[in-house]
Each structure stands twice: as structure tokens, then as C-alpha cells.
């Protein structure tokens, strides 16, 4: 017995990624569905087991802090990929580049002339009260005027089938290694399908990341020294830090491996003595970067690092202070920011956002707390949120007080109808589960968008929480175009970086 695709019932109120209606796969997913229908129950079981053992062998894990010490958990993965047509992806990718370009111009403006505030597009207090604005960065001019070099934008698809930007992650976004590993798992576990469907490769990301980082080097040398700065093995993304360092051939270092000397240059301690470092891909937060400037007790950072960066002797990616554009109030202004700096209409819309500091909008929010999602402006990782439809009266009252006390710090959005995709449940049942998409966008001298991105899926029925620490899993993401020609297959094989 194989999967009964005819019985798969996407719920009408959501957009399903693979099916337009029960029994009718969308065009880009047709070949995938017809292939999957040929698999017997045993086939599916054995491939599922192969997936699990592949993940263990490859050591793909993420760290969970609780449960007595830090524990490496195997990466939860669903075999059924999510499929997006290449024509739709091209438009989305252009929109992502547009957005990051405008955001970088915005950040650069904030730390220099603040024209956007003087022109009255954004109220000054939004900036003044932003937790991630760093006055220490004023007047600094990173190369190419780019502050956020690596961005992990969260996209969701609403019931109309349109992608919306939910969040711009401009500080230290993670997940790209899982996107790459998901593809290697699929290639090992269901290699046949790659013959049948023309799937765009994703493996060139580390190459582009390296080129982006190398383009930032302050020294004009043939081989700039690029390093990945990690907080260490107890960080939940350590796997990714090691993975990216390995793939780029860069050194994986901790703060204690670096030293800033009197010449305001950064050096790493090697067996041959001190060696100058040009570019630091830092995976630790701003506030831990440099105990001379930020958190005095930070042992993760490097004393003097900010000095070296300001002197232009080392590049930091992302630049300190880039997180100012992560503020959810700033988010609400991104469409305006795009129009202001680029004179273009945004290619990807924002999710409708209510700003609580505005009297009229706040009244609406307070009257509709049971329908809205309320978020604090400067948290990440889903902390301190109110999900209206799932909240108790008491929680809503608490939030009403919080909002009234500090309206600048809160925004609200309608509860989204996150799209679904068929997901293997139990033995060989297929049920719809909600998902989002995190593509990664690079900007240095050039810009680049991953082919697709990391699809995160809420494995629990009806759940909208896709975080891996809370029962979320992931799927391979396929950008697919027309039927396979021999030439296209050859090209695809050549383009694969792995």
C-alpha cells in the first residue's frame, strides 16, 4: 500500500504548498507527487529510517540547553519537500535583494546624517528608544556602506498564496547549514527523484559567503584572513559555526584566540606567533563583542575589537549596530524605507502591522487583542509574545497594561493563516502542517540570495510554532522549473558546489 494522495485534504482556509485542491498537485509539484505515489509503505518506512541514520551519521544536531546540561538533538526532518516554481522564486529573490539594499542604506544613514528622520519619514523617538541602536557606531563607514552582510529573512505565505516578510534578521541569523544538510540528506535518501525533477542546486552558499566576506577585507591582499568567531561549543548554533568554517576553509575561533595590539589591528594566536585577521564573521551578539565598549564582563569577546573596527583595520560581519533595523517598529516602516532610498515599490509586502505608539492604532489593538499577535519591538526568537486567539483573558489584560505603559515597545499583527504542506505523520499518513521559509541574503560588493532557503515546519497538528526547540522540524526546499532536459541536468550538476 502506498500513500493515498487522493485522501490528502489541505484545509481550505490555508494555502497548501503542493496541492491546489484535494487530489490536484500544483504544477511544479506534479512530478514529485507522482514519484512519491509509486513508493510502497515499506519503501517509505525504509527511507524514513535511512533519513534518521543519515542524520546521526552526519552528526547534524542542534543543542538544547535544558534537560540537565546541554544535549545534542538530532535534527528533525520531514521527507516530503516543499516545492516552489523558479519563476515565483526569481521575483521573491529580487524582492529580498531590494529589501536588504534599502535596509543597509537606512542603517548607514542612521549612523551618519539621519536624513530619513530629518525628512520626517520616521519619527526621531523610534530611533532614540531603539534597544539595538549603538551610538558607539556613529560616523563609522563600513566598506560599500553595507552593515548587514548576512540576513535571514523570515517569509510566510498567507492564504492568498503571496509571500510576506515576517521578520528581517540582521544580527546573527542561523539555519543556513541545515538548509544545506537537508539537501544532502535528500540526495542520499531519495536519489531517484533528482533524475526526474529539475531541482536547482543550493550548495554554492559557502562559496558566496566566503566571497562576500573576502570582499570586505580592509587589506588589499590576495588571500585575506577570514575567520568565524563563535561563542563556543555551548552555543546552540555551534554545529553551524563549525560547518561554515569548514566549508569556507576559514578558521573557527573563540574570543580568547584573538588579540588587539597597540596598532589597533586584530591578530590571532597561531603556532607561528601572531597573524593579522582581516575579516571576522562574528556569530556573537553586539553586546558581547568587546568588553572595552559593551558588556564589561564578557569573556566571549575581544578587548579592543571595536577600536580596530572603527579604525578600519578589520571588517566585522555583520557590523555592530546593524540590529537597529531589526526593531519591529522599524519593520513597519520598511516599505517606506524602500520607497525613500530606492524610489521603488517594495516587491515583497510586509505583514500588516499596528504601531502601538500611534493613538488610533493602539485603540484598535487594545480593542482586538483576542484576534491579534502582539510582539515586543526588540526581542527575537518569539519571546514575550501574545498570540490573541490562543490567549486567556488574564494574559490579554496583562498585555493591555504592558502596551499602555510602554506603547513604543509593542506592535501587533493579524494572526496569519500560515501556508501548509503535506507532511509524513506516523507510519504513512500524510497530513497538512504549517510552515515558513527563511532564505539567506548576502550583500558585500555583490548581493546573493540562496536558492530557496530553510523551510521550517510545525510538526504538531494545527501548531504555528516552527522553532526547532519547540517541536519544529524542517523540509528540503526545491526551486523547480520545467521538464528536465539533458543540458539542464548537466548544468545543474556542474553548478552544485558540494
Amino acid at each position, binding site marked *: 500500500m502506498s500513500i493515498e494522495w487522493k485522501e490528502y485534504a489541505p484545509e481550505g482556509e490555508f494555502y497548501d504548498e503542493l496541492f491546489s485542491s484535494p487530489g490536484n498537485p500544483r504544477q511544479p509539484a506534479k512530478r514529485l507527487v507522482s514519484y512519491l505515489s509509486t513508493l510502497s509503505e515499506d519503501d517509505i518506512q525504509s527511507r524514513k529510517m535511512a533519513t534518521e541514520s543519515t542524520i546521526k551519521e552526519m552528526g547534524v544536531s542542534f543543542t538544547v540547553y535544558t534537560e540537565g546540561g546541554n544535549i545534542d538533538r538530532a535534527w528533525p526532518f520531514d521527507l516530503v519537500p516543499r516545492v516552489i516554481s523558479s519563476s515565483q522564486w526569481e521575483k521573491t529573490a529580487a524582492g529580498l535583494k531590494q529589501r536588504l539594499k534599502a535596509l543597509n542604506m537606512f542603517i548607514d544613514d542612521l549612523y551618519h546624517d539621519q536624513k530619513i528622520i530629518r525628512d520626517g519619514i520616521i519619527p526621531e523617538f523610534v530611533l532614540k528608544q531603539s534597544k539595538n541602536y549603538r551610538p558607539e557606531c556613529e560616523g563609522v563607514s563600513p566598506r560599500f556602506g553595507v552593515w548587514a552582510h548576512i540576513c535571514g529573512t523570515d517569509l510566510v505565505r498567507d492564504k492568498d498564496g503571496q509571500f510576506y516578510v515576517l521578520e528581517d534578521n540582521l544580527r546573527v541569523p542561523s539555519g543556513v547549514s541545515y538548509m544545506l544538510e537537508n539537501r544532502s540528506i535528500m540526495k542520499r535518501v531519495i536519489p531517484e527523484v533528482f533524475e526526474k525533477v529539475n531541482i536547482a542546486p543550493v550548495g554554492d552558499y559557502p562559496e558566496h559567503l566566503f566571497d562576500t566576506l573576502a570582499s570586505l577585507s580592509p587589506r588589499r591582499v590576495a588571500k585575506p584572513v577570514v575567520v568565524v568567531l563563535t561563542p563556543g561549543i555551548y552555543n546552540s548554533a555551534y554545529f553551524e559555526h563549525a560547518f561554515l568554517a569548514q566549508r569556507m576553509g576559514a578558521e573557527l575561533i573563540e574570543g580568547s584566540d584573538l588579540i588587539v595590539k597597540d596598532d589597533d589591528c586584530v591578530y590571532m594566536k*597561531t603556532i*607561528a606567533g601572531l597573524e593579522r585577521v582581516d575579516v571576522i564573521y562574528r556569530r556573537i551578539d553586539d553586546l558581547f563583542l568587546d568588553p572595552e565598549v559593551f558588556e564589561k564582563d564578557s569573556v566571549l569577546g575581544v578587548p579592543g575589537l571595536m577600536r580596530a573596527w572603527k579604525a578600519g583595520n578589520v571588517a566585522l560581519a555583520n557590523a555592530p549596530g546593524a540590529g537597529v533595523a531589526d526593531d519591529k517598529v522599524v519593520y513597519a516602516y520598511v516599505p517606506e524605507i524602500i520607497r525613500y532610498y530606492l524610489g521603488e515599490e517594495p516587491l515583497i509586502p510586509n505583514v500588516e502591522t499596528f504601531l502601538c505608539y500611534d493613538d488610533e492604532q493602539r485603540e484598535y489593538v487594545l480593542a482586538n487583542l483576542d484576534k491579534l499577535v502582539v510582539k515586543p519591538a526588540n526581542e527575537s526568537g518569539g519571546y514575550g509574545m501574545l498570540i490573541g486567539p490562543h490567549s486567556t483573558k488574564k494574559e490579554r489584560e496583562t498585555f493591555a497594561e504592558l502596551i499602555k505603559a510602554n506603547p513604543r515597545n509593542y506592535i501587533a499583527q493579524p494572526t496569519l493563516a500560515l501556508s501548509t504542506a503535506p507532511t509524513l505523520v506516523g507510519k504513512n499518513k500524510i497530513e497538512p502542517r504549517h510552515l515558513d521559509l527563511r532564505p539567506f541574503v548576502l550583500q558585500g560588493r555583490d548581493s546573493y540570495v540562496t536558492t530557496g532557503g530553510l523551510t521550517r515546519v510545525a510538526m504538531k497538528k494545527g501548531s504555528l510554532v516552527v522553532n526547532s526547540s519547540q517541536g519544529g522540524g524542517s523540509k528540503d526546499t526545491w526551486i523547480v522549473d520545467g521538464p528536465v532536459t539533458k543540458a539542464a541536468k548537466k548544468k545543474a550538476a556542474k553548478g552544485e558546489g558540494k
Partner: protein
Amino acid sequence: MLSKVAERIYWAARYLERAESTARLLTIYDKLLFDLPRQVDLSWYNLIVINSLEADFNERYSVRDERNVVKFLLGDDSNPSSLVCSLKALRENIRTTRDVIPPETWEMVNELTLFVQENLNQGISRRNRHEFLDSVIKACQQIIGLWFVSMPRDSAWDMLLLGQNLERADMTTRNLDAGVATLMEVEDDDFAVNARQIIWGNVLRSLNAEQPYRRAARSSVKGHLVASYLIGDECFPRTLSFCLSTMSDVVTKLPRNKDVLNFLKGMQKELPGCSETDEPGEEFRDTLNSLQLALGDLHSVIGTTWFMSESV
């Protein structure tokens, strides 16, 4: 190469070697049990003494019997040199140097750690001990083999060789010491000659050195010859002389090597011999002990030279 990475690789190699050597050391005693005449009362506690672990052991156990000694050396997580702890430290070091070590190492180390966790009781009980120790030794050798065939001969490899040979030299002195300590418990009676041969034979076998010894010494197994061989032979990879000269070769290739090189040369020059007439005894144990101290100093010189434990 980053100092910290160098240090971690060096320690990974040391702990892998230590895990294997601990297993080897236990096999000597395990085999002696079968061969020695019943009159010889074999003290398992010797294994604690020669590893300089008396204080740690006595804190944990009051009875110095076989079971406790073996438990302490294999499974005790309060003993930093136990098999379990060595593997744990090995795993942590590999985990943080995966960018310079063949990726399969990680999987092999995981497998070995799991095997030891699941089968520890087999190692502690006498019945399956041999099989258990044998599996551990083989798994260690598998990892070394992987490194040997797939690592570029760069600084990472040099650090690995340094760690491996320093630990190996140290463990060879301890294996020798185990032999002498047992020997000193043999009473001088009719069984003595036989017992001595058995003991020295096992020291050689536990280091995989029996066959090479016979070919090099062209003699039956005699105490002073075995001791001289394991210290001074230039061809067999576990002798003191070989380990020191391997380290010298490696160090020559590394930057800022003067202090380490001088120290090594000094040690090589002063390698002790063993007098031909007497069975190695208390005096020889003192010699072994000062060799161990010198290796400890060598480690410190390596550390200050390349690991930059202190700030620059």
C-alpha cells in the same frame, strides 16, 4: 594554525593514545593471571601505583582488589586517566577541531564511546575482559589508521604526532614499570626464572613488541635486554628512543622550535641504559620515574612555545 586548535589536536592524540595504552596495560595483568604460578600473589594495586593514581584511588575505594582497580582504570569518572574519561576528553577535542581532522573521526569516536558505555561491565568482569579490551584497542587503531592515510602532513599532523609520541613514551615507561613492580613480588624460589620470563614476555606482548624484540635481540626474553630494548631501540615505534626522535623530526618543521628542540636533544642524549648483570629493580624504577618527570617538563615547554596559554 591557531594555537588553540594545535593544543586540541595535541590533546586529542594524547587521549586516544592514553585510552589505547590503558587498555594495553590491563591486558598485561589479565594475561599474567593465567600464566603465573599460583604461588605468586599478583597485586592489582601495582597498576594504581605505576600510574601515580594512589591518592585518587584511595579517596574512592578502601579495598585494593582486582575489581576495584579495574573499575577505577576503566569506568571511573573521577579518575581523569580512566578509559571513560580519556574517551570523553578525546570526543570534546575532536568535536572542536572537526575542521582540521578527517570528518569520519567524529563518527568513529562516537561509536567507540557508545561501545564502551554499553559494554563497560564486560570489561570489569574477568570473563569477557579480553574481548572488551581487544575491541577498544582495535577501535583506537582504526582511528589512528584513518588519520595516517587521510591527513595532510601539515601542522595539524605535526601536533598530532607530538601528542601521540609524548603520551606513548610515557605509557611505555609505565608498562615497563608495571613489569618491574610485578617482578619484585616474585619470591626467589624454584618458580622464579619461569615467572620472570612470563612477566617480561607479557610486557613485550602488551606493547606488540615481542616479535620485533626477538628479531632485534636474538635472545630469549631477559629482563635487562627487554628494558634496554624498550628504551633504546631505534626502529620499534613504541620505544623511548623512537618516540623522542620522531618528536625531534616533527619539531624541526615547526616554527619557533628552539627551546623544544634543545630539550628533546638533551633527553635523547641522556637516555639511560640498563646494566647487563642484574634484573631491573628498585633503581630502575627510579630511572623510569625521572623519565616520566622529564616528559612532563617537555609537555610544559611545548605548551608555552605553541599553545600560548599565557597572553602574548
